[in-house]
Structure formats: structure tokens, C-alpha cells
């Protein structure tokens, strides 16, 4: 009974009641704190600020509690235009008017308030604070990181409720339930891998499960092994962000410790993304000076087995790169090291080229490298030219069709 692919399991298998949530996470203090805040709220009281890492159920709890207690939910999140004006409108529309019939009242929910950014940010914070003070209905907010100094005015008028990362055992319990409903026989170890990679984030665990298990009758360790690689990629992006944003040498140097990537792989990631992060040639040149220094020392270390040089390699590639910035850190979209992808993609043509070089080398008393630089360019020209007896060359070198094709088409 596999489901149609367009229903996200995060929606389909969402807990619908407080009881169902408690079934997954057990008795949790934050649930009770939130419920009692809402129950006892009266105009003039503090707002509630739910905070914690993504995918631990902040939004879900607000939705479920509102439903169970009969509140009408007014929701705004980071994807909405969060300018001061938008908030003012919200104040006008909802907070001052109270429904007379049908529901107990309204609950204003501002999701992802740490995502406040751009023009009018300070104004937006001010508007929220005013909204909280004037509101005649309860206001609840959610954030991943509420400790940004800019959010301080909001913290001062809010009850802080912390959500912790979910335990692996809680996640596994929920994943098992989903598998049962979907008719999937899941290997316990596979679920454990999914749960552990999620690092306490239920949403990502359920998404991963769906990606790996949908349409299957059985879920084995093999079905989930690719998740590891993908996670490492996310990890790399975070590590790069920390590195490029670092303002002190030590912060940059520590990045290596917090990374799953080994230093050589990390170096490739830095190499790939340096020109994206640093666009001013001045800082780029300086950063690359350090990265190239790191590379020189890597060569020296590898050749001479001088492992004690590793510390310099790491200092150059992290602190050296981070301290080269002139302009403040700005958000940048990073990419996977292209060289790895390109080399993989070009593997076929490269193999053809290499075997041509090999043949030339053995016939012409040359190394493959010299065959590549001394003879190959001329072979290309000869194969492109109309007059050459290509067949003779092919036969003499022992080229097959794909090699001839390569020599003709390549330019």
C-alpha cells in the first residue's frame, strides 16, 4: 500500500494531538510550559518564544495546541513579507479584534523570527515588541537561535520555552510507526542510521525515510547508505560557513575539529568555494596565497612523511583563508568540489585519451606524458586535416573507432 509520491510523509504522518506528540517524545516539560502559558494568558502578559533546532516540533506543537484548545491561528513566517507595514496590518486585523463566536479566540503565531532580515529589520523587531504589548490575544513566536542581540527587545517581553533535540530513540519509535502504516518491513539498523544522521531533527528523518523507503516492501541498510554521503555534503556547507565567517584565528582553526571531513577533503571544498565567497580580487589573492601555502606544506608532509607539518597546513587553510577577508561575511551559495564531479564525468573521454597516449608512447619511444604534450596536439591536427592517410596512422598505432572519433571530434 504505497502512497502516491506527492504526499509528504511529514504531513501524512504528523501527530494530530498532544497525546500523540507525547507518545513520541514522552512527558516533556516544554509541552506543559506552553500549554499552561496559553491557558493562563490574559492581555498584558508576556508572549511565548519557543526556540530550539529545526525539526523538533515547535510549529507542530503550536498547531496542535491551538486546535485542541479551540484557537484560531494567525500565522506568519519568514517567507512572508515581514516588514513593519505587514506586521502593522496584522496588528490591525487580528490582535485588537476578538471573535465573538465560534472560537475561543485568536492566537498569533510568528514563525522563524530569527529569519528577520533585510530592510527594516530593526523596525520589524520594534513592531513585534509593540504588537506584543498592545495585543489582546496571545502571541507565540518560534526561532532556531533566539540569542541574536538584535532580538533582545523581543526576549524581554517573552516567556522563553526551550525545545531540545529529539533523542534517537524517539525518532526511531516514530519511524517504526510510519513504516508499519506504510506496510514496510524495516530493518532496525536501517532506521537507526536514518535517526542518527538526522541528529535530533524529526522532519529530516521522516523526509529521509520517505526518500529511501517509499514504494518498497523492505528497507535495508543498503537502502539508506547513500544518506551518509549527502549528509556529509550539508556538513561541508556548514563548515565552510563557519570558516569564512570566522573573525578570529582560533575560531577558524577550530573548524577542522568540528568537521566530519578530513583535512584534505576540506581543502578541496575550500578551494572550490573560495572564488565564490571572496569576490574582491584583493582578498581572493591573499586567501589563495595561504591556501597555496597549505598545499605546498601538504606536499612536503606527504613526501617526507613529516607529519609534524600538519599543524601549519591546517593553520594556513583555515585561519589564513579566514583572516584574508576584507569585506564582512555575506551569505554565499556553495558548491560541491567540481573537480571531483568533472573528473568523474570526463572519465570516459579521459580513458580514451590516455589509451591513445599509451599507444603513441609505446610506438614512439616516449613517456605517456611526452606523448600527450609532444605528439597528441599534432595528431589532432592531422586527423582534422583532409589530406592525411588517417587509416595508416590508425592501423599503425592500433587505434579503434572511439579513439579515431576522439581525435577527429575533440576540437
Amino acid at each position: 500500500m504505497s502512497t502516491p509520491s506527492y504526499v509528504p510523509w511529514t504531513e501524512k504522518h504528523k501527530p494530530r494531538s498532544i497525546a500523540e506528540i507525547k507518545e513520541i517524545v514522552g512527558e516533556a516539560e516544554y509541552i506543559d510550559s506552553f500549554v499552561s502559558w496559553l491557558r493562563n494568558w490574559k492581555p498584558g502578559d508576556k508572549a511565548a518564544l519557543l526556540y530550539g533546532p529545526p525539526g523538533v516540533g515547535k510549529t507542530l506543537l503550536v498547531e496542535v495546541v491551538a486546535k485542541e484548545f479551540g484557537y484560531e491561528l494567525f500565522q506568519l513566517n519568514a517567507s512572508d513579507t515581514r516588514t513593519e507595514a505587514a506586521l502593522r496590518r496584522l496588528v490591525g486585523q487580528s490582535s485588537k479584534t476578538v471573535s465573538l463566536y465560534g472560537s475561543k479566540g485568536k492566537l498569533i503565531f510568528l514563525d522563524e523570527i530569527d529569519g528577520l532580515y533585510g530592510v527594516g529589520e530593526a523596525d520589524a523587531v520594534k513592531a513585534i515588541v509593540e504588537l506584543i504589548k498592545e495585543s489582546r490575544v496571545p502571541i507565540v513566536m518560534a526561532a532556531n537561535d533566539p540569542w541574536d542581540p538584535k532580538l533582545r527587545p523581543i526576549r524581554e517581553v517573552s516567556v522563553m520555552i526551550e525545545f531540545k533535540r529529539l533523542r534517537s530513540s524517539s525518532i526511531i519509535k516514530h519511524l517504526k510507526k510510519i513504516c508499519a502504516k506504510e506496510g514496510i518491513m524495516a530493518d532496525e539498523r536501517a532506521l537507526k542510521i536514518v535517526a542518527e544522521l538526522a541528529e535530533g531533527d524529526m522532519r529530516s528523518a521522516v523526509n529521509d525515510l520517505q526518500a529511501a523507503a517509499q514504494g518498497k516492501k523492505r528497507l535495508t541498510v543498503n537502502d539508506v547508505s547513500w544518506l551518509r554521503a549527502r549528509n556529509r555534503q550539508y556538513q561541508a556547507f556548514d563548515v565552510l560557513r563557519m570558516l569564512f565567517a570566522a573573525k578570529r584565528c582560533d575560531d577558524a582553526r577550530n573548524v577542522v575539529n568540528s568537521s566530519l571531513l578530513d583535512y584534505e577533503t576540506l581543502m578541496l571544498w575550500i578551494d572550490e568555494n573560495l572564488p565564490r565567497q571572496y569576490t574582491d580580487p584583493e582578498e581572493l589573492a591573499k586567501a589563495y596565497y595561504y591556501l597555496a601555502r597549505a598545499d605546498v606544506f601538504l606536499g612536503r608532509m606527504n613526501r617526507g612523511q613529516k607529519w609534524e607539518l600538519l599543524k601549519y597546513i591546517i593553520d594556513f587553510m583555515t585561519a589564513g583563508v579566514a583572516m584574508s577577508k576584507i569585506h564582512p561575511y555575506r551569505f554565499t551559495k556553495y558548491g560541491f568540489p567540481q573537480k571531483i564531479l568533472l573528473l568523474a564525468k570526463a572519465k570516459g573521454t579521459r580513458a580514451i585519451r590516455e589509451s591513445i597516449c599509451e599507444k603513441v608512447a609505446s610506438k614512439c619511444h616516449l613517456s605517456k606524458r611526452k606523448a600527450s604534450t609532444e605528439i597528441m596536439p599534432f595528431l589532432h591536427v592531422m586527423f582534422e586535416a583532409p589530406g592525411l592517410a588517417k587509416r595508416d596512422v590508425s592501423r599503425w598505432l592500433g587505434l579503434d573507432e572511439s579513439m579515431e572519433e576522439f581525435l577527429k571530434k575533440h576540437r
Partner: protein
Amino acid sequence: MAFKEELPALWVEKYRPKKLDEIVNQKEIIERLKKFVEEKNVPHLLFVGPPGTGKTTAALCLVYELYGENWRHNVLELNASDERGIQTIRERVKDYARTVALGDVPFKVIILDECDAMTSEAQWSLRRIMEMFWRTTRFILIANYGSKIIEPIQSRCAIFRFSMLSKEDIAERLKFIASREGVKLTQEGIDAIWYVAGGDLRRAINLLQAAAAYGGPVDDVTVYKVAGKARPTEVHEMLKLALKGDVLAARQKVYDLMINYGLTGSDIIRQVHTEVFRLDVPEPLKMEIEDLVAETDYRLVEGANEDIQITAFLAQLAKLGKKMAG
């Protein structure tokens, strides 16, 4: 003759001399080598000199004349830059030296080409290998630069320095080949080949054959056309992009060169060195770039990851480009 196989289709091979006497120039060297053949006594040899001056050819001619038809059984050709380290060289030499030489020459010959590609550690091992098998084998070591060969090896070898071929030498050989192949080669064609290839006979012959492949006479126009095509334009574009400040696009060219042309970082930097002087930038800037090229070339040898060094070079270029723009 010992060469019954099909005639080579590439002229560099087809017209590679088979006898010491046919070698272009290098007269004194040839005389001495002929003495070794007569006496059937060859010391370890070290041939040094620029590319395309006949080092490998001289080694091959020597063994052809020494062993005649049996040469294949008595000669091992190795290339230092192809072998995976000194360990494999040692293994191959050991296996090879175990069997006795065929015929009336009491030793076998190992030709080891491109020795200057070896690290000095590897050369020290090579020295020991030479020592170990001296009863049964002679080495002919070939390198571009004698100075890159460690002293203890130099002192165990008779050293022969191959000199750069003159324009007359090159012209004579080219005319000979052209007449054999029925190709019309003009004086302008010869001048152009000399301009492009200098004293490198291998490159000169390759140019001649590629130009002849267009069917018409080989004149300066066809030669420059071939030379232009044989030189990847990516290097030039890469430099221009970097100077404009687009390091990402410039790096894409580096990947193209590495993947499509199979060039190594050193190959690219060598190309850069010639391209720098063709760039449309103020003359003093060319020297600033050249300074960076030299430093990068050196670092490529020391570093681990070639494209990091090259991208670092491109980033420096972007900085220079920004300075130039004001």
C-alpha cells in the same frame, strides 16, 4: 635488416635513424659510440641535452648495432616518468637482469629515459641498482638536464652532451623527408618551422607532417596554422578571464585543459609562460606576471594539489588586472 615491421605512419618514427651514422649532427658523440660497438664494450652512459636532439635515437641505434636482430631480447626500455616509482623500476630491472644476454655481447642494456623526472631519493636507489647488476647490465640514462642527475650517478657514467641542432641541420632533414614523401616544402615553410620548433627536430617533423596533411605545399601559412591549432587556445582565454577578474570562469578553463587535453599543472604553466608574452597588456605587467609564473612553476613541484596552485596564480592575476584597470 632487423626491421621487418610495417612502416611507421608517423614521420617522427618513420624517419628515425636506424644507424648511428644517420643521426643528424652530434659527430663526436657518434664516433665514440661507434667505438663502443666495435669493442662490444659499453660503460654506463648518460645522455643529456635539449629535446629533439637525438638522445633516444642514439641509444636505440647503439643497441641495434650492438645486438643486430636480437636487440629486443637484450634491451629493456623504461621511462622514468611512466614507472610508478623506483620500486617498480627495481623489480623490472631485477627480473630482466636475471637472464643471461643472448649472442656475443656479455651484457644487456637498460635504457632509462626521462631520468630528470626522478626524485633524488629515487636516483640514490637507482645508483644502488646500477651497482647491484653491473656484471650483467649497462644503463643508458637519458635526461634533458644533467644538473638534475645526482653526482654519484654522473660519476659512474660516461656523459654525452647533445647539442642543440642548427637551422641548417633541421632544414636539411626536413628537405630530405619532404622529398621522400613528395611534399612541396618552401623556404618560408622551413623558416616558419624553425621559428616555431627551434632546434627540436621531433617537433619540426611533427609540424611538417601535420602541415602536409592539408594537402597543399608546406609554406609559412600552413605551418603557422598548424602551430596555432596545436596550441590550445584555452590557456590564452584562461589568462584573459583571470585578468578581467573572473577567477571562477578562468578556473573552468583549467579543468578543461586538465580533462580534455590531459595536461598536468606543469604543462599548463609551461604554456602560460609562452602565452604571457603574447598578452595584450603593458610590457612591465608581463614581467610581473612572469614572476608569478615562475613562482607557481616552482610551487607545483613542491605542492600536492596542482589546481590549487594554478587557481592561486589566477587569483594573483585577477589582483594585477584590478590594479591595471586602476
